[in-house]
């Protein structure tokens, strides 16, 4: 295959100006195919300002969308504009972008401070400027105490925050975070969510991808649902939540004696069905997930049963997708 030599343009940020009066991100009927796999099919979007959650299951096209924005891959058809510039052809808009890739691998041998400083200099900062900015963003993500330790010693959540800090070092107008909460412990999740919310409040355009609706809901109301490379829904999460509540949910409880435990749910009016999955799994069906979850601890304590796990097997996104696609996901 002949290499595509269409990329051109200097990465001189001082010569580059964003096009006025255009959305920060513009997708115009963008398609991307990998061989015979259609990763993205005719997506049109315009996003400016605020925090937007990109929801979709694995393989829905979230990462492909981000890769297209970041000029990592070339669109098969359609046009992408980042501040009015085609990112495949010119990397200059990245002076206003912070990108947090989903890849877990980091330069473990560097300290957090070194890592952020090094990549800050790629924005054209001097050593001193970069050091100052690095200290600023690392304390913004609450890593100021450990910033001179090697990244290799960091926990998943800390690593995720290093990545976020490195993306914020140029004070970007657009921040793209690919699955930033994946694999993080609850504390790190909360920190990261707060950081994202703060960025939104500062008037930045933030894109966050996730496959877990709950997470996104805690950050933003503005969501885009991707499914099989297409935009399935776009809008306020409350509206989507209302649709969802009409839809039955399942809760699976791991316990010693499911039959004993089941007795406690029979009288509950929110529960619409009870199934015994295996000898130590009890499945409850409900249309009011929140209500049941609220009462669950009390019921379990009263039943004196040993409960080893609670799981929502059809996670909320799947339910939405089921609903939106009429049951064929």
């Amino acid at each position, binding site marked *: 295959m002949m*290499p*595509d*030599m*269409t*990329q*051109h*343009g*200097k*990465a001189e*940020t001082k010569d*580059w100006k964003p096009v006025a009066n255009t959305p920060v991100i513009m997708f115009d009927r963008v398609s991307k195919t990998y061989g015979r796999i259609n990763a993205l099919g005719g997506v049109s979007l315009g996003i400016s300002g605020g925090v937007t959650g990109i929801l979709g299951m694995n393989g829905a096209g979230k990462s492909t969308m981000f*890769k297209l924005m*970041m*000029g*990592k*891959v*070339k669109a098969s058809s359609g046009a992408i504009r980042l501040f009015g510039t085609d990112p495949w052809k010119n*990397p*200059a*808009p*990245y*002076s206003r*972008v912070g*990108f947090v*890739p989903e*890849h*877990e*691998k*980091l*330069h473990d*041998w*560097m300290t957090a401070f070194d890592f952020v400083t*090094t*990549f800050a*200099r*790629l*924005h*054209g*900062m*001097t*050593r001193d400027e*970069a050091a100052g900015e690095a200290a600023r963003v690392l304390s913004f993500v609450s890593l100021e105490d450990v910033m001179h330790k090697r990244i290799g010693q960091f926990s998943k959540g800390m690593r995720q925050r290093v990545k976020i800090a*490195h*993306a914020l070092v140029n004070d970007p107008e657009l921040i793209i975070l690919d699955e930033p909460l994946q694999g993080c412990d609850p504390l790190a999740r909360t920190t990261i969510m707060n950081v994202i919310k703060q960025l939104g409040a500062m008037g930045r355009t933030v894109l966050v991808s996730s496959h877990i609706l709950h997470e996104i809901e805690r950050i933003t109301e503005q969501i885009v649902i991707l499914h099989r490379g297409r935009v399935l829904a776009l809008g306020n999460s409350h509206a989507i939540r209302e649709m969802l509540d009409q839809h039955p949910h399942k809760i699976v409880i791991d316990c010693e004696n499911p039959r004993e435990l089941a007795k406690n749910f029979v009288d509950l009016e929110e529960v619409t069905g009870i199934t015994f999955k295996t000898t130590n799994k009890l499945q409850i069906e409900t249309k009011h997930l929140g209500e049941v979850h609220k009462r669950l601890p009390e019921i379990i304590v009263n039943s004196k049963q040993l409960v080893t796990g609670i799981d929502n097997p059809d996670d909320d996104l799947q339910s939405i997708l089921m609903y939106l696609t009429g049951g064929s996901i």
Partner: protein
Amino acid sequence: MSNRMDTIWSKLDRKSTAIAEFTMRQYRTRISTWAVLGAASVAIFLMLLFYIEAMNTEIEAIDNDGDSFDTDGDGYPDGQERLEGTNPESDQSFPDWVEPDPPEKWINEDDIDWDTLSDGENYVGQDDDGDCENLDTGSQRDTNDNNRECDVVVTIDELNGTINIDADSNVDEDPDEDKYGKEAGHRAFILGIGKFGIVYLLGIFLPLFLATGLIREEMNDGTIHYMLAKPIARGEVLLYRMLGYIGITWPFIIGLCITMALITGFTGPGDGVFRWGDIGVWMTIAWAAMLVSLVYGTIFCGFGIIWKNGVILAILFAAWELGMAFVAILSGGDSSIRYFSVIGWGMIIVDSGVAVCWPDNWQLIQSGLWGGGQGEENWLGEMDYKPLPGAVPLDTFSADSNLGVSSWLAFVISSLVLVFQGVLSWFIGQSIFKGKEVD
């Protein structure tokens, strides 16, 4: 610092040094880097041990003209009798007015005495032991018929690059094997280890291990995303990564060559304590290895970008270059196919450096190939000359740059060609990198 310098430096000090510095630190944290550099040093120094041993071993002296032998058993070696004018084949005739010489005095007693030679006919040579001067008739003393008794005619045809040596009998016929062999062996070692060991092997193995993954490993790890998500062109990323690669390999090459120059300079033969004349040759070897490893590095890094198994392409390329290295070394610079390689130009750098630093090198080779005396008749019916020890290896590893220009110009041209090859490889590499989708 002036304001302007400040601006230039601070501009450079941003993206380029950030990536170059990052790359060098990355190399330093990898064990593989140290393994490669360590293995290369060990291999070169092992070769050095052979050299040191050879330099400390006396080369056996050969009595080429057989005049240390006392044919008639009268106690006087044949050479002494010929010098004194008595009959070496009669025990009745001996020079009783002098003490008999020990036989060793008549081994290696007639060294090659050639001054600097120039184009055309040169009348050189000196009959140190008098076995030519004492011959009876003029025709015996002038067997090469040039009307000069007891000389050597060296005819040089610079245009065609031929040399013809025609000596009167018994002139310069018994040179010092040890002296010649050490000098020639020393030079042959420098050129052999320099051209093949450092310019080719080091020049190709350092980039094979250190440059092929320069971009590819980052792509595999996904860490390239951090670099590519910045306002910097991919071509720049490639360029600055190469700078970091040079930052590790070039000091290593220079350090290795300086160490070798010091060790061989003190160990090698010669009247002085240190062989200053070799420094220039080591410098051209280092320079050739630096340029060659830069070109290979850029090419291999490009191979890594093209294909995740780019190292296979690199090995195939290295095989071609190995062939070219042999062609360039063994053809003595006569083959023009070497121009279609990287290593061929690297060798020209060394050859031109040798021509400048050791201007007597070719003369040393020719006198050595000739100086061992006459050997067998070859298939053409001509008499073969036996080479002195070390002459054949030195001849093998020496070559003429054969660019038809002066040595200095050949040095400049071959350096420029390598720089051009490096720039071209970078340009192609960055074009491919720009069109590459990075997942």
